[in-house]
């Protein structure tokens, strides 16, 4: 089946050029076929191959975490706790959270798309520390192994939040193994962030000033700041939990005067910025997609770039909004509430600027754009509901209910995962040298969008009506909404399976891609699909601004 990639209806008319005139033939040797064999993959230092190693790993973890979601939604079809016991249910949502947060969402875009694209986007041959990059992947796998060990030997039931003193004293599950797994995995993040920061500072091509960088790179720079400054705090926090359980070095034990709220402070000091780790890279993707599929410069480039930094920095100042009802001081609650409203501003700025970019743009609706527009809408809903939660009074009513669950799934699934899928589709031709089937991709995007909303919108209502989170049994009157949510989950699951099928299919049977099938701006589109190992035949020199798409009306000027 032949499908068209490139600006569809709505774009400027583009007569198809014969390949010989449009661009030089792709080199026979690229990073994929330059060497074969398991060793050439497991011992690679090529950032592009490492990105694919991560792609395989995070995809596996996504489906593992998704399997737990399936069981959760199955249980919640009926009000009675009849599928699993409550102890088992506790393990289900814990493992779902741990795997999705630490082993899928946090690494996904940075480790797959960031690793692949950042050196190419800045005109470099690789990241600053290629062997460290490979080590990051091995550390990730080692951490995953510990966590899967915890899973198969009986699971953890503390919630992904590991609150003390339950996690330190009273839980009878494999807290130590799971805690160590996440601790180890944290170093994978830290080293990736370190690599990105040094690379972006030190390895930009001639002419590539900071304010000519793609916004994808700005977003990953900001994310890397959080990786480096935030992740060590959860590392030490989980280590203290492990020490308390294993060696009785108890600092959270109330019997000794320990304060469980201290655990929450230390935990959320990282885990709030962590949510910005999960969304900032997706925002970077959206900036790339919206510009390409509107054939237009981003509106307000410097402001969008600075907003990424602002989110990263202010994101470190708001962690107490997870603790409004914990017993933290009311005064602290007031400050955290105010700062949480503040952090919404740079996010809103991005949404305004993406929308303004569309205005008078030449918009086409290819799959990546479907994901991008979906992101903007769903992230807006998720972000606005975050403001409800940031209001102290409202939060007292909806905290620990399904309202919170819906809020963060709108951002992490409706936002981050759609950004991830949009990016995977947009850069798929670059990464694999193949085109994916556009019709199936659009179908999958629509199914995912519909399934997502059916799953999670009812949860806002459930939460507002008072259904608590992390309960496997609930009052009868909540059943209709729960059934809707579970039905939506099955549609969403189907939607996620489709790309697995057609993307894998395209690697073998998809039409070969040219260097720039989207006619997009950006250094990555100036090199072959797939690129050679060194990325570029010659060192690129940058002379124009980012997103230098032709301005509307310029075609008429002679």
């Amino acid at each position, binding site marked *: 089946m032949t499908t068209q990639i490139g600006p569809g209806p709505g774009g400027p008319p583009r007569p198809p050029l014969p390949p010989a005139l449009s661009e030089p033939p792709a080199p026979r040797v690229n990073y994929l076929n330059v060497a074969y064999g398991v060793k050439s993959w497991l011992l690679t230092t090529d950032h592009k191959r490492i990105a694919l190693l991560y792609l395989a790993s995070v995809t596996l973890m996504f489906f593992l975490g998704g399997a737990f979601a399936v069981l959760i939604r199955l249980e919640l079809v009926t009000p009675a706790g009849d599928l699993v016991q409550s102890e088992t249910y506790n393990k289900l949502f814990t493992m779902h959270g741990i795997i999705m947060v630490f082993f899928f969402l946090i690494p996904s875009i940075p480790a797959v798309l960031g690793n692949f694209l950042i050196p190419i986007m800045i005109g470099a041959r690789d990241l600053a520390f290629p062997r460290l990059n490979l080590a990051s992947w091995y550390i990730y796998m080692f951490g995953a192994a510990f966590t899967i060990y915890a899973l198969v030997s009986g699971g953890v039931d503390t919630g992904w939040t590991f609150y003390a003193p339950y996690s330190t004293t009273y839980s009878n599950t494999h807290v130590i193994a799971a805690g160590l797994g996440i601790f180890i995995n944290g170093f994978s993040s830290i080293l990736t962030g370190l690599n990105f920061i040094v690379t972006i500072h030190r390895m930009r091509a001639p002419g590539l000033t900071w304010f000519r960088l793609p916004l994808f790179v700005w977003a990953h720079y900001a994310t890397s700041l959080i990786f480096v400054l935030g992740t060590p705090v959860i590392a030490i926090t989980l280590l203290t939990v492990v020490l308390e359980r294993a060696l009785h070095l108890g600092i959270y034990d109330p019997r000794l005067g320990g304060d469980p709220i201290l655990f929450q402070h230390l935990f959320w000091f990282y885990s709030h910025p962590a949510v910005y780790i999960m969304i900032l890279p997706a925002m970077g993707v959206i900036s790339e997609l919206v510009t390409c599929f509107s054939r237009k410069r981003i509106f307000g480039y410097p402001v969008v770039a600075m907003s990424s930094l602002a989110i990263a920095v202010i994101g470190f100042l708001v*962690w*107490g909004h997870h603790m409004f009802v914990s017993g933290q001081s009311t005064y602290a609650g007031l400050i955290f509430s105010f700062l949480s409203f503040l952090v919404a501003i740079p996010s809103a700025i991005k949404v305004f600027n993406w929308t303004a970019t569309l205005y008078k743009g030449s918009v086409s609706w290819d799959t990546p754009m479907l994901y991008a527009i979906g992101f903007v809408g769903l992230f807006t809903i998720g972000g606005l509901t975050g403001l409800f939660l940031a209001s102290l009074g409202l939060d007292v009513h909806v905290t620990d209910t399904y309202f919170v669950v819906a809020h963060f799934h709108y951002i992490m699934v409706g936002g981050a995962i759609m950004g991830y899928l949009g990016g995977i589709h947009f850069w798929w031709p670059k990464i694999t040298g193949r085109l994916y089937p556009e019709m199936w991709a659009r179908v999958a995007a629509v199914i995912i969008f519909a399934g997502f909303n059916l799953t999670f919108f009812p949860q806002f209502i459930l939460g507002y009506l008072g259904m608590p989170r992390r309960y496997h049994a609930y009052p009868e009157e909540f059943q209709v909404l729960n059934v809707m949510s579970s039905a939506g989950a099955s549609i969403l699951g189907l939607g996620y399976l489709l790309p697995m099928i057609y993307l894998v299919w395209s690697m073998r049977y998809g039409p070969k891609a040219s260097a720039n099938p989207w006619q997009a701006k950006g250094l990555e589109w100036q090199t072959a699909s797939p690129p050679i190992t060194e990325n570029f035949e010659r060192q690129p020199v940058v002379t124009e601004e980012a997103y230098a798409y032709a301005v509307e009306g310029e075609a008429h000027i002679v």
Partner: protein
Amino acid sequence: MSSSEHIVSPVVYVGVFLALIVLTGLTVFASTVDLGLWNTPVALLIAVTKAVLVVLFFMHVKYSSRLVSLAVGAAMLWLLLLIAGVIADYVSRGWVGSPGT
């Protein structure tokens, strides 16, 4: 950005070493004197001074790029943010609102 390496003279190193030893003795001595509320700030001030000497001279930050100084500054700032943010909760309990918070 430093283009060529600045070789620090061993005399500087020995000088810094002696200063560090003296400051160590000073902090031990200061802890035996009752300075009331000032004992803790004095101890911290001496520790910070020692750390600054190590950072500037042993770790060559005095002769390094602004980027390195930025990294050092960011680390200090974030550490202070962590400690101050957490202690602020405990110190402000009882200032506003319900008893116990």
